[in-house]
């Protein structure tokens, strides 16, 4: 046990103790899942400088040997996308004082952006990062409004704040019926009203206004920024596709438990999906068609698939979901793309690929990244190795030793 630990620790210390590393790094002998046209590169090196990948190739070298990470054939992938969620917006779900993603004004406020509350020091950030999850899209919710507000991509490096580019969230279907007067039909009525009001400036008398001035400005100027519609039922997806087409939105469908039923329509509309590959139960009358082959069938129909299981604390489970998608017929490449390059492109944070010129946000894996008996070996962000330490690993290291005479409070792992 110790030797494995020491190896990890050694790697971390090695890297942290050389400031020059922020400038340069060489990952030797990796199996690189580029997620681009280059496919999988075996026994290949990655040269990083100034936070970016400057070269991929065999037999590369740098002057300072101490800046070399020997991957020894391990898999290197782009940093993973954990899905839509609330990492950094909530520490303990049932403790309202720690939770900021939910707005309860009972108004329609498209301008609501919980990203202002994002806490990069939240324990959830490191807990997910050390498992290879480097990106998420913060997701807002509102009671009293099917327009949930705005989210944004955030890099889970423990420093960054959410990206400036925003994502609009709209919830439809039975989960949102409490916010639309009890009818899912009213959801499209309310959406039309909001978008129309945004375009026309609202009722001159001010009586029937749904939105604030800021809210109207948000919808009016939304343009081609991403819009995520959350819904599951096939019939609702068809309605949403009509709305998306009419308003020429750059949209994705999240949830989409019955997405496979309307895969052809999604493909024709060029609308990607964000699905949880583990959803296979008719948990409501919106998802009677939920099945494990959803991801595979959507892929086969030519729909761009991304994975998202929501949540925050256990967002790291997303790669298990991806593995299950493969076990149920999806291609391995598409499953890995669903948590790297596809969301990177849709949400616009980078290419989600490993290629020259791209930012060096990478994960070195000690096995198959989609396997439950493998995990991240090292996490590189902006060309720097990061400490594989979280509040959970510290608790683990405090309680792993078997013999202790003083209370565990005197064991200070990580100091």
């Amino acid at each position, binding site marked *: *046990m*110790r*030797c*494995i*630990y020491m190896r990890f620790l050694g790697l971390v210390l090695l890297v942290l103790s050389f400031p020059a590393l922020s400038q340069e790094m060489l990952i030797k002998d990796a199996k690189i899942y580029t997620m681009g046209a280059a496919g999988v590169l075996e026994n290949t090196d990655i040269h990083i400088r100034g936070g970016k990948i400057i070269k991929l190739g065999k037999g590369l070298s740098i002057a300072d040997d101490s800046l070399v990470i020997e991957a020894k054939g391990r898999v290197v992938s782009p940093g993973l996308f954990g899905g839509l969620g609330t990492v950094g917006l909530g*520490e*303990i*779900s*049932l*403790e309202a004082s720690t939770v900021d993603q939910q707005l309860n004004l009972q108004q329609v406020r498209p301008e609501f952006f919980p990203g202002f509350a994002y806490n990069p020091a939240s324990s*959830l950030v490191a807990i997910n990062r050390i498992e290879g999850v480097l990106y998420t899209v913060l997701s807002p919710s509102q009671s009293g409004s099917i327009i949930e507000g705005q989210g944004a991509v955030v890099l889970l490096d423990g420093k960054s704040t959410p990206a400036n580019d925003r994502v609009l969230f709209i919830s439809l279907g039975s989960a949102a019926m409490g916010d639309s007067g009890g009818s899912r039909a009213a959801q499209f009525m309310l959406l039309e009203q909001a978008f129309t009001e945004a375009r026309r400036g609202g009722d001159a008398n001010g009586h029937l206004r749904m939105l604030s001035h800021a809210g109207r400005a948000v919808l009016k100027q939304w343009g081609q920024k991403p819009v995520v519609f959350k819904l599951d039922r*096939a019939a609702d997806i068809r309605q949403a596709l009509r709305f998306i087409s009419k308003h020429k939105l750059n949209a994705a469908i999240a949830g989409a438990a*019955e997405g496979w*039923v309307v895969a052809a329509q999604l493909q024709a509309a060029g609308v990607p999906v964000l699905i949880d590959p*583990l*959803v*296979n*139960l*008719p*948990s*409501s*009358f919106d998802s*009677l*068609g939920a099945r494990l082959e959803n991801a595979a069938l959507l892929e086969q129909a030519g729909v761009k698939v991304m994975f998202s299981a929501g949540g*925050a*604390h*256990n967002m*790291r*489970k997303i790669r*298990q979901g991806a*593995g*299950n998608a*493969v*076990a149920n017929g999806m291609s391995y490449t598409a499953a890995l793309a669903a948590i790297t390059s596809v969301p990177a492109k849709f949400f616009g944070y980078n290419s989600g690929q490993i290629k020259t010129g791209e930012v060096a946000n990478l994960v070195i894996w000690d096995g198959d990244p*989609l*396997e*439950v*008996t*493998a*995990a991240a070996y090292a996490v590189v962000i902006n060309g720097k190795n990061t400490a594989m330490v979280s509040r*959970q*690993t510290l*608790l*683990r290291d405090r*309680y*792993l030793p078997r013999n202790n005479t003083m209370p*565990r409070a005197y064991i200070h792992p990580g100091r």
Partner: protein
Amino acid sequence: MTIHKIPVLLAVLLISGWQSWQAQASEPFPSSYEALPSSKVLITGATILTGTGERLDNTDILMANGQIVALGKQLSAEGAQVVAADGRWVTPGLIDLHSHLGVYPSPGLKGHEDGNEMISPSTPGVWAEHSIWPQDPGFSRALAGGVTSLQILPGSANLFGGRGVTLKNVYANSYQAMKFPQAPQSLKMACGENPKRVYGGNKQAPMTRMGNVSGYRQAWAAAQEYQQSLDDYQASLAKGGEDAKKAKPPKRDLKMETLSAVLRGEIKVNMHCYRADEMLTILDLAAEFGYQITTFHHAVEAYKIADQLAAAGVCGALWADWWGFKAEAYDGIQENIAIVDRPVGSCAIVHSDSAEGIQRLNQEAAKAMFRGNRVGMEIPPERAIRWITSNPAKALGIEDRTGTLEPGKMADVVLWNQNPFSVYAHAEQVYIDGALVFDRSNPAIQPVSDFELGQLLQENN
């Protein structure tokens, strides 16, 4: 019960004494489970994890008459249907110690919310089995994940939530026909935040953890009194003569029947408890009133007291990685199960508490095994499989009949397409009491609940 049988029952009640009535009352709602038709099956050349801690490579397993007959090399069996495993893996049927299938079924309709009797913090008189909707589609999904037995528990809103029941994972028109024969009953209890939140929020006891403990103690004290009156009554009957004639049994009290059965050691205690300090409080509570905690459920802090749990002979039924949804779940770590498993005499269990998790107990166990190995514990698959087979069988009191692959045990068996400790593993065939009840390659041998029949017809046209 059909109507014409009622006079017979009444007659029986009138002519027999309270004792025999009590004996009858102790077995109401009996299991009507019958093993499904099976044939003699020989699985050859398998990698077998027996559930006893052993791994047998390239080994055959023979099932007949619903039982496991033999494990060995080159077994031959006249008239047996032969399944060539060719190195594929065989394990005991998986067992989930903590499920709410049927009581919180899919779809999650208001009309189906039957898992928490939230009218009082103390409802030990209710039985989860009376809430089970046997048509829950979740049973079929769990079966596809290799689950052959499962315990259905009431929820955790109450200090005393009610009785749990162990089922065989077969579809039937009644839960009685799913009920694991002669499995001990259990009691669900809860520590911590849930009872506090549900009742304290309404300015009702318990509002605090000290209120929780006070609530348990008051109830156990009452149960002791009830038990005393039962004992006094029995003693009077035993004396005979005038004493026996005058003796009156205590008034039946369903709550007290459950609690006194715990004190007599007849009902196993499943205690929902997250924090280490609370679990130690509960162990003292159990010592005060002389009963045994069988299992702490969820127990995200069990790793902090793994040695004490093993010493007390208490199982820990745990998740691989859930944490943080409430304050008492804040200290979760991914090594919890492996650390709880580490002491001699330990009883680590991977449980689901989830209609999703129950479908992949093998993956949850794999994650826990991997996290242990990553910190140097050297847990092989033959050890980790116990977390989802023999250890939960032990916690249910059915380990003499299932949970391991040994001659004479129920033929509850899963054939996997590969090492089950992988995200890519599928249960290919599932046998319950020797009957093939799930076959991944044959849709005819895949159960479909009444609820799912005919859904999405329009979409499929």
